[in-house]
């Protein structure tokens, strides 16, 4: 039988020793619900108003910068990196169609773009790797040894 519960709510499992646990769970669920239902444009709200919109992430070894630039060829891209910034510029061409066509919709736009992103840590500009796959540009910007996070081992004096 197919059963459907509201928000996957488990059956009542009140624990007398933790009277607020249920409220805490409810709060977490509300947070999750709010996260899921929030329009993504709010979440991705801190845009700089510069094309292309970019996502910057980092892992232990490097920064990763991604941007969606459909229809841009690799040869139309110019990428420059310094020790703490990277800039992407280029032009998106919308090819001219043949003469006797009528447009019903024209939502795609062409034009120049240029964007610089400052990085909080230092990178090695000589080892930057750029990939353009299916209209998504991915830049891997390797961190220098000095800017990598170090694991600090804690010594215990007790034996």
């Amino acid at each position, binding site marked *: 039988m197919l059963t459907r519960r509201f928000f996957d709510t488990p059956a009542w499992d009140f624990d007398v020793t933790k009277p607020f646990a249920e409220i805490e769970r409810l709060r977490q669920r509300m947070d999750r619900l709010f996260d899921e239902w929030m*329009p*993504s*444009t709010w*979440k*991705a709200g*801190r*845009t*700089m*108003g*510069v*094309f*292309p*919109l*970019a*996502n*910057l*992430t*980092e*892992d*232990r070894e490097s*920064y*990763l910068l*991604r941007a*969606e*630039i*459909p*229809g*841009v*060829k690799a040869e139309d891209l110019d990428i420059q990196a310094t020790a703490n910034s990277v800039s992407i510029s280029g*032009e*998106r*061409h*919308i090819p*001219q*169609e*043949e003469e*006797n*066509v*009528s*447009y*019903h*919709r*024209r*939502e*795609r*736009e*062409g*034009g*120049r*773009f*240029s964007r610089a*992103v400052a990085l*909080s840590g230092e990178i090695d500009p000589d080892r930057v790797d750029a990939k*353009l796959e*299916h*209209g*998504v540009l991915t830049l891997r910007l390797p961190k220098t040894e000095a800017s990598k996070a170090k694991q600090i081992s804690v010594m215990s004096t007790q034996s």
Partner: protein
Amino acid sequence: MTENDTKALVPKGKQEVVSKAEQTKDGLVFTPDVDILESDREITLLADMPGVQSQDLKVDLCNGVLTLAGDVAPWEGPDEKDILIEYEVGRFYRQFSISETIDQDRIDAQLSDGVLRLTLPKVESAIPRKIPVAAG
């Protein structure tokens, strides 16, 4: 190159799909930007679908409704931390109703650099013909 090509681009936020039909998969769904142009012989549709690979793209024409659906693989690695997130990634989905009679067997779809180019040739009977008028 047209004059249009040299102006500076401004970013457009991706449009999330507002659909009456519920999606069966969870995750975000976006509307791809399209150009639709028509000539005497065919209708051409260009759609921006960055991140969609050809095996994840479904194009379907059924009862005059053209459906484009493209799945995008998650872009983030497992141990990456977000610093600046300006766009979200999700499925692309859009439907069009096509009034012209399309020759289903000759539909051609090409995906390159994240742009889908769909050529929908009209059937012979739908191609306009010039009818000579005999003066009598």
